[in-house]
């Protein structure tokens, strides 16, 4: 366990997570237009894929991945997150993606296991 107490290995690498999430979004909805019948499937597969990729890294973290997909109709959307955790070890990363017909906001929260 001692190796995980090293400071540089211990904190959450948000650039890496950012890259992983962008890849997952592109692969699921990259080329599609908003479709009400498919959106359920898309959100599920985005979170599923992101989680699998993150867990594959093998780091001692618990993960929470959330995804919101919204149709572009001029409506306003605001999101906020607040976290009560260990700021040295835990971290988060939020990716905003859009195409012609929809917005996609994915947040990853990683909480270190003691």
């Amino acid at each position: 366990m001692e190796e995980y107490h090293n400071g540089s290995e211990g904190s959450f690498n948000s650039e890496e997570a950012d890259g992983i999430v962008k890849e997952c979004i592109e692969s699921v909805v990259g080329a599609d237009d908003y479709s009400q019948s498919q959106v359920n499937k898309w959100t599920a597969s985005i979170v599923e894929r992101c989680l699998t990729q993150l867990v594959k890294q093998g780091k001692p973290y618990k993960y929470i991945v959330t995804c919101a997909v919204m149709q572009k109709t001029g409506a306003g959307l605001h999101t906020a997150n607040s976290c009560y955790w260990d700021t040295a070890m835990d971290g988060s990363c939020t990716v905003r993606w859009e195409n012609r017909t929809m917005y996609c906001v994915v947040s990853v929260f990683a909480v270190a296991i003691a």
Partner: protein
Amino acid sequence: MSKTQVSRFKSSVDQERRHFYSEEIQPEVFLLLGNPVQLTPDEAAAMDEYQTEDETAFVVEEVSKIIKESVEAAIGGNAYQHSRVNQWTTSVVEQCLSQLSKLGKPFKYIVTCIIMQKNGAGLQTASACFWDNTTDGSCAVRWENKSMYCIVNVFGLSI
């Protein structure tokens, strides 16, 4: 982390993932997913220590009440206003978080809030969590008024 340490930490429900759709959550689903496996007698005895103590469990009803109160207090009687939304989302999450930390339980919390104007647009949200099923939990609350929707998610991860 070696395999033995992982299994000690995670107990019998190893690395189980749950996903749920925020739009479709019913309280009963949490109860269902909370009891998925048969424990061996040793594990059951160990778990009893944790399960009988309300002080260390994630209580969904309690958290749900806190969220509803915070949302009402922050945006209760208001109509959607682009200039104020930023302030509202911030105050909803901050109020929730401060009430939750006042509970004094050994949890780390993540609170997310989405406010959307009612415009006919479609919104779908989903979350997936990789955690310890026996001790961690989440709660989602959907609130609306005539001009906007507000969705608040709270995730509690035990320390």
